[in-house]
């Protein structure tokens, strides 16, 4: 079997493409969690983003409206979560789970009219450069703008948290909301903003699935990616760069196991399908076992409600 070097490039590019929604949703959730809020509704927000993006694209015909509309939909549904957990001080876990169930249900309802409608082609950038460099050409060029954004996002997130004042405030709120509040930081406002940002990124991740990755609407099409995104955040110990690594491993194994199934490797399909989930988590656990670093990067107040009383 002769393997074309550009074919390898294409496989790597497809692995990267499958990692995009995970990176987007994880980096969004990472900011939310760094402020001390545990939002288990990522799956729900993603699928809302997916149906909103697809529906807006079909109805308005505008890709820009569709992408931003999907993000807005993510923001709106996360506002429900923010209102419940930050204003009405409900339990983060229960509210997040409810959000996911709600998202899956309502997306199926809206999506009924969009099943079977073909999607639109999403413009890609630097298409002409694809052939210029062997191997790297297909990896670097000919992708959508969302793709490039997703691969820049972990670095932007890392810079934001480490180097900017607002990033510092987010980490401070996640470390100790009481201290932050006594320092004059509006904890509720910061947490609202972080939740809404997480919603926007999950919405974008969903839109990427239904508009770019597989341009069509299928019920429940996120297929558990929201949960993987959540796991990536935790097992990467809230480190955006490790999220990138985890998402690539997960994407890689997903793609490779498809190919293995296609070739007809004699391993039970169920095992192959389960492989990415197990391996990703094992790898992330192994690369993040420094307990000192875990302590330093874990938001101490994660999942705990903060109520300021006068």
């Amino acid at each position, binding site marked *: 079997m002769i393997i074309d070097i550009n074919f390898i490039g294409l496989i790597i590019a497809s692995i990267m493409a499958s990692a995009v929604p995970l990176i987007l949703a994880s980096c969004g959730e990472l900011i939310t969690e760094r402020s001390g809020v545990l939002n288990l509704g990522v799956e729900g927000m993603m699928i809302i983003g997916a149906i909103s993006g697809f529906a807006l694209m079909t109805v308005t015909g505008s890709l820009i409206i569709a992408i931003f509309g999907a993000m807005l939909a993510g923001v709106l549904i996360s506002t429900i979560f923010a209102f419940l957990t930050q204003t009405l001080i409900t339990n983060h876990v229960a509210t997040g789970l409810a959000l996911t169930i709600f998202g899956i249900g309502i997306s199926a309802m809206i999506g009924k009219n969009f099943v079977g409608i073909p999607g639109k082609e999403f413009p890609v950038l630097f298409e002409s450069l694809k052939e210029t460099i062997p191997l790297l050409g297909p990896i670097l060029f000919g992708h959508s703008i969302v793709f490039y954004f997703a691969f820049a996002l972990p670095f932007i997130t890392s810079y934001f948290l480490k180097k900017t004042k607002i990033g510092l405030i987010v980490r401070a709120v996640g470390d100790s909301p009481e*201290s932050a509040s006594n*320092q*004059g930081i509006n904890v509720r406002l910061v947490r609202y903003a972080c939740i809404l940002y997480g919603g926007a990124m999950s919405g974008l991740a969903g839109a990427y699935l239904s508009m770019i990755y597989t341009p069509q609407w299928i019920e429940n099409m996120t297929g558990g990616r929201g949960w993987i995104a959540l796991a990536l955040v935790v097992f990467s110990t809230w480190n955006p760069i490790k999220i990138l690594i985890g998402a690539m491993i997960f994407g890689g194994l997903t793609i490779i196991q498809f190919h293995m199934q296609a070739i007809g490797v004699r391993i039970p399909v169920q095992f192959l399908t389960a492989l990415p989930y197990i391996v990703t988590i094992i790898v992330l656990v192994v690369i993040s076992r420094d*307990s*000192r670093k875990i*302590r*330093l*990067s874990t938001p*101490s107040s994660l999942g705990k409600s903060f109520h300021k009383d*006068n």
Partner: protein
Amino acid sequence: MKTNLKISNVTKIYPGCVANDNVSLEFNSGRIYALLGENGAGKSTLVKILSGVIIPDQGEIYLNKNNLKLNSPLDAKKNDIGMVFQHFNLFETLSVFENLIIDSDGQREGLRGKIDTIMKKYNFSIDLDIPVLNLSAGQKQKVEIIRCLIRNPKVLIMDEPTSVLTEQETIELFQSLKKFSEEGILIIYITHKLKEVMQLCDEVAVMRRGKLVSVSEIKNENIESLANKMVGQNLKTIKKKKAKTSSDQLIKITNLNFTSEDPFETNLTDINFSVNRGECLGIAGISGNGQSELFQVLSGEIISEKNSIEFNNNYIGDLSPQERREYLMAFSPEDRLEQAAIPQMKIFENVALNNFKSSNFFNNGLINENKIKEHSKKIISDFNVNTDNIELKSQFLSGGNLQKLIIGRELITSPDLLICFNPTWGLDVGAINYIHETLIKINEQNKSIILISTDTDELLKLSDKISVIHKGKLSKIMNSEEVTSEKLGILMGGAD
């Protein structure tokens, strides 16, 4: 420039309690003011009002004749009022530098220069780039103080600043505070420690149950007069009669080691000591030097080698707390609401948790409620717990009452050895007195105590022998008559 701070008719009412009842006070820069009172007297509420954390129901605050509206901590900062809280307001996982710059607007590097200047001026030395969780309590407090100083405050409020400091660190703090005062910063010092007031302050205001009781010059007061004002009655001073030294050994610890997997715990190395019947062994030290690990090893929360602990001629190092209780050991952990009692459970349910074999609290797996309640009532009356409702959830008991309940629960089985860890931490003078009396009484009944405490005065008052724990190692065991608090302070700091 002179600073004048005036509090006028401030009232703050919480459901069921008047925290501040029409309090008026006036402060002038150049002097150090003490605000003295027991826990719950309302002094913390008052300073939280001054720092904008709590908004008063009534009353005005004037700084240099300007009426201040302090609706948030930010307002206080803008008006040059700085506050160092009793429980540090630091972000443990952020670096020292990040903690310092979080509320300032300047450029990072400019701030670094400013911080360096402040540290040089007051002789502070702290690495700015390590996370706060690696600092000692004294260093953390300095970080808080620097954070205030960056803003050039006119007023600096210190809320019970010495509760976590060693003798040496306290002396340093007092020197710094005097320096700040000379430079024109108005200092308000909140405490319930009378000795400190006498050492440091120029003027003292005493609060009791939300009301201002007196304002006076320090030179007209002494420790007894202040104590009586603070408690509102004449306190009898208790003194321990020196016990006849018995040679009957009760517990012996031999070569006990504990290595923790958690990097934030302290390892214990080569712990050796013994306690005779009727004796109280005090273990001093700055918190975080292995006290909590030592307590857990002694109580059986952490299992050690069987032979390392010999109690009443039995080797019990590998037994659980429950099994150790059967051998007549009793335990009073440091954290009353987290470790000693379950806050959401009722008083009698908490009593039942100490389910010793002869108690008959449970029959065939069923709860014998009458038996437990009867037992609880006995504890409440024997140990002076100020409630008659054993159905009350224990979180609603005051710290003092809860501690009496816990000590009572432990002692009612008449154990041979009581191990307690900071038994009077955060309690008011009345409750402290009661606990101290109780502990002395136990010794008089020829029963033993291991008292792990960070309060040096308490240790000197109650112990027959004292040892100091530093970085997980015990100093040699000394007779308490030979020890002074200065000597303990030096040992606590790690010197030999």
